[in-house]
């Protein structure tokens, strides 16, 4: 079987399992929207401040809750399944790419829902064309976060504190993504070029993709 057919098979099954478990859409997404509600309640009804912080809160919650999507149960293999995958000849890099594909689909759906909820709840005053730029930015942000989260999930696989430990590992490493994404909208608002920030996001995504593929086998072998 080719690299890409293995990757697509992993992505296919991952999404099938996730459809049956429903963690991402039925638990993580509603939880993130509740978190969106918590911020303004804590601030009091300061409408202009709420409108101003809307996009920033979106990116912050995107990282924190997006991590839970990257660490979903369907992406966590038992030790016996790892052994079986190794014997079958599943390329660890193909498994990584497959998980990034499935995670990316879920992450994008989550970010779209969260973004719409933020628009409704915070009524930010966004410049013209912001929604399309935000979608592009969210796509790049989501792919990078998925790549990072998938690697962190592999490194912490089998550990009892996996969820919190992986989040601790990812959150600081996700800073270039948060900066790139938030500064893109900031640049749009100030009517300056967004290109440097888009390039930052692209470069981060590419670097994470290369790192993930290159490190997949060493990470897999370190599990033994």
């Amino acid at each position, binding site marked *: 079987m080719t690299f890409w057919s293995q990757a697509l098979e992993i992505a296919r099954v991952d999404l099938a399992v996730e459809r049956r478990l429903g963690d991402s859409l*039925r*638990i993580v997404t509603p939880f993130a*929207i509740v978190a969106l*509600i918590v911020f303004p309640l804590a601030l009091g009804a300061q*409408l202009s401040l*709420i409108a101003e912080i809307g996009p920033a809160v979106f990116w912050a919650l995107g990282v924190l809750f997006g991590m839970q999507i990257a660490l979903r149960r369907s992406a966590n293999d038992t030790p016996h399944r790892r052994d079986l995958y190794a014997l079958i000849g599943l390329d660890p890099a193909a498994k990584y790419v497959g998980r990034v594909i499935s995670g990316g689909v879920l992450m994008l759906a989550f970010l779209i829902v969260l973004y719409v909820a933020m628009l409704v*709840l915070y009524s930010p005053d966004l410049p013209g064309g912001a929604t399309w730029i935000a979608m592009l930015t969210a796509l790049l942000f989501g792919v990078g976060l998925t790549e990072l989260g998938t690697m962190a999930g592999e490194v912490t696989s089998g550990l009892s504190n996996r969820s919190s430990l992986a989040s601790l590992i990812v959150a600081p490493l996700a800073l270039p993504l948060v900066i790139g994404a938030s500064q893109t909208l900031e640049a749009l608002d100030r009517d300056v070029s967004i290109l440097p920030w888009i390039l930052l996001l692209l470069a981060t995504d590419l670097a994470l993709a290369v790192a993930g593929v290159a490190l997949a086998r060493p990470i897999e072998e370190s599990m033994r």
Partner: protein
Amino acid sequence: MTKVRVLLGLAGVALVVGLWFALTAPADALQGEYSRIINIHVPTIWVAYVAFVVTSVGSLMWMWKKTPKWDRLAASSVEVGVLFTGISLLTGMIWGNAVWGTAWDWGDARLTTTAVMFFVYLGYLALRNSIDDPKVRAKRSAILGIIAVVQVPLTYFAVNLFRTLHQTQSIRPDGSTMPDEMIVAMMVNLGAFTLLYVALLVARIEVAVAEEAASARDTALAGDAVKPPKLDEVRDV
């Protein structure tokens, strides 16, 4: 299924009648045609309150009697209640955007508490979905169903507890702020949506019964479905 069809049919007729009343009642002097949304917005949230109270009653009865029918009632009522809460939130946002110029106002306590109520019961559904064992599922969701009902009075009385953008109750024991024709239209729609709730509830309970029967069949079949292996065909694989 015949019972469900009859109920849905009756609800459909009642909704059409309600729609006629809603469209022929006078519009609000200030809000214009947008005021007619009240005929969906208010009845749906009322029915949602009823649905969640039914859930709490079903949960209490399950804790007492431990029979599956109470668990089915509680869970089915939450599903319909969440649907109606969502409709009420959506129509409220449309109405609010048209009348106040904003779909969401953080100064509106009822809006916020209704949204919180929506997510509390989404959490109830997520909890049920996470548990395979029917007895454990029934017990844990009964506990949540009893606790969560506190959201109902909190949401209903939010407009009285906090001075907010949301209008206070339109119909109170000391009288009403609405013209009679609007009250009639709203009451007819309240009846129609209540019928719809009952129809959907009965339908959902029937589906739950069918799901339990299918699950029991699957479990019983485990031994029957496993046949002796065909050892003489092993070499041909």
